């Protein structure tokens, strides 16, 4: 097989000439691993001994009973080493880097999860590592920065533009066009120039492969619906791909509705009205941009979903109506989080809680012998600063104030 550059009208590889040769070599290396069954074996072995795969599929009995409809199953990407599905992609690219013989990796990160995963992989594989992170995100996600640094990674705060994920991506590309000889850019989601969308989706497809086997063995048949949150699209594609050809399974991607689709403070590219086709960051997709083609500021309670673009593969599946897209507001997300913690003792990442919102809305419509799967892309304890803040928790505030007083002395 060879790499698909376009997915319907979307995708491509809009890169500066300086990277042309780098991408040509990356594509060759990617095709080699893709066509080498030994690679997938090496990959799954690594994920098994290092990251705890297969991750479980948990039957959320209490939530199922609470909604009185479909049996709710949760795919537990939170139990991956580093706490999110991001590890899948990163460890896979780590093996690729080893094959390519490069000695340094760079990455962008928004929520910090991909940065943590890359720092982890770099430590494990003995690679030098620089992570670009928007200054806003550095401020929001200081604990992640701390851990990245402790694992030996250099975290560079990006002061340009909106100081978030997209700016970190630009900055990573700027690094790459200078240092491509020894450096691989570990792209964090199923976006960017080819072959990234396909490669990242492929590495993440391990999620859906496991989930399909698990649901059949635990529930007896395939699910009626599969829900996943959609930032760049990697966790959703990771679980969706396996079910694309399954007639009985409907796929639902959930975007960040922020303060509501009409508020212009959201990050809905496929289910809202504020996005349009465009080309940026090396690929063509639906972007949140103005009429001049300038990218807009986005908003979400979750740092991992507030990205301007979306995987070209998802744009294609959207256009072909193979995946349905919905949005969850910040408020709904906090409520779903709350319910999931209380009912199941599980703390979803704010990103993942978007998928829960939509699943909870629809579960009652389905009969009790149907199953739905929610891809829980990550764990929420990393989000303590955001979540405690969102809850406006007084003793948390007091705790922080006390700590600060100690530090100010």
């Amino acid at each position, binding site marked *: 097989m060879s790499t698909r550059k376009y997915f319907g009208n979307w995708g*491509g*590889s*809009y*890169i*500066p*000439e*300086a*990277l*042309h*040769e*780098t991408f040509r070599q990356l594509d060759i290396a990617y095709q080699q691993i893709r066509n080498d069954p030994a690679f997938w074996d090496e990959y799954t072995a690594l994920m098994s001994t290092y990251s705890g795969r297969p991750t479980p599929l948990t039957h959320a009995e209490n939530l199922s009973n609470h909604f009185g409809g479909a049996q709710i199953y949760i795919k537990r990407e939170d139990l991956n080493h580093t706490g999110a599905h991001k590890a899948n992609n990163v460890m896979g690219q780590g093996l690729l880097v080893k094959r390519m013989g490069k000695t340094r990796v760079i990455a962008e990160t928004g929520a910090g999860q991909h940065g943590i995963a890359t720092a982890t992989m770099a430590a494990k594989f003995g690679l030098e590592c620089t992570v670009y992170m928007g200054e806003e995100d550095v401020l929001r996600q200081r604990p992640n920065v701390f851990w990245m640094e402790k694992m030996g990674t250099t975290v560079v705060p990006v002061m*340009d*533009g909106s100081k978030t994920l*997209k700016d970190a991506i*630009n900055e990573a*590309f*700027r690094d790459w*066009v*200078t*240092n*491509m000889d020894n450096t691989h850019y570990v792209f964090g989601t199923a976006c960017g120039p080819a072959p990234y969308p396909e490669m990242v989706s492929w590495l993440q497809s391990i999620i859906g492969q496991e989930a399909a086997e698990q649901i059949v063995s635990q529930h007896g048949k395939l699910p009626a619906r599969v829900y996943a949150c959609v930032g760049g699209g990697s966790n959703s594609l990771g679980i969706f791909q396996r079910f694309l050809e399954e007639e009985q399974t409907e796929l639902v991607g959930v975007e960040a509705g922020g303060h509501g689709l009409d508020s212009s403070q959201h990050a809905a590219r496929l289910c809202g009205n504020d996005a*349009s*086709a*465009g*080309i*940026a*960051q*090396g690929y063509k997709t639906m*972007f949140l*941009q103005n*009429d*001049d*083609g*300038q*990218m807009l500021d986005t908003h979400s309670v979750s740092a991992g979903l507030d990205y301007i673009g979306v995987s070209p593969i998802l744009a294609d599946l959207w256009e072909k109506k193979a995946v349905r897209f919905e949005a969850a507001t910040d408020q709904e997300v906090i409520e779903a989080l709350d319910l999931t913690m209380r009912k199941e003792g599980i703390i979803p990442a704010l990103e993942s809680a978007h998928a829960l919102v939509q699943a909870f809305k629809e579960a009652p419509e389905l009969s009790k012998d149907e199953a739905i799967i929610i891809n829980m892309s990550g764990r929420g304890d990393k989000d303590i600063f955001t979540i405690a803040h969102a809850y406006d928790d007084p003793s948390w505030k007091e705790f922080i104030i006390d700590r600060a007083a100690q530090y100010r002395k």
Partner: protein
Amino acid sequence: MKLEELIRQRKTDKDILLMTHIVLGYPSFETNREVIREMVENGVDCIEMQIPFSEPMADGPVILKANQDSLARGTTIENCLNFGAEMCSTHDISFLYMTYYNIVYKYGEQRFLDQAVKAGIQGLILPDLPPEEGADLCKKAKQKGIAPIMIYSPTSTNERMEELADYGAGFVYCTARKGVTGSHSKLDSDFKSYLERCRRATSLPLAVGFGIQNRNDIEVLIGAADMGVVGSQTIKLVDQHGSEAVGPFIKELFGNT
């Protein structure tokens, strides 16, 4: 007249040509106007006018900041196109648009080219549009007499250079080094052999940019290239010393001190 011919014509009188760069709307269109006048009066041959974009992936810190500041001041594409038309009709040198592909795409390729032609723009530089993605746009531009400028990089293989040459017109923009705009380039023996590879790959004139900052750099180019390109350096100059510093700087680059 077509860009390539204009360049060859100007080159008969000079050992090296000079292309300068401005970011439209930064620090303001008024300053752009003055800076361009200084440039033209001091003999600059081509000016690339960058239409700002929110995601200027191939630009270094100076131009990046200029893009953002211009947009923050409210610069629109209409402003830019109007200004471009005004410059073309005011000054008798070659003007090009430089921007990222999304600007052209969102405006509409056809509409963008029509406006450019009407204004008198002679070339178009889109650093994130490799010809694989932009073959059609290149063809349409050429048909309308606007030169799609191809970019060579030290990382381009000989085969790649030849391939690119076929899509381009006007001249080829050879980046003096890997990386983004802004920092100074070492113009050493590697650079020389890179330029020789460029020369072998295309019959189009060669412009050399990225990190060209002073007369020394320009002197290295004489004989090896047709045109030097100065970008970030003029922006920094204007930031620090105002538009009136541009004339002396250009003079110095030409060796007219």
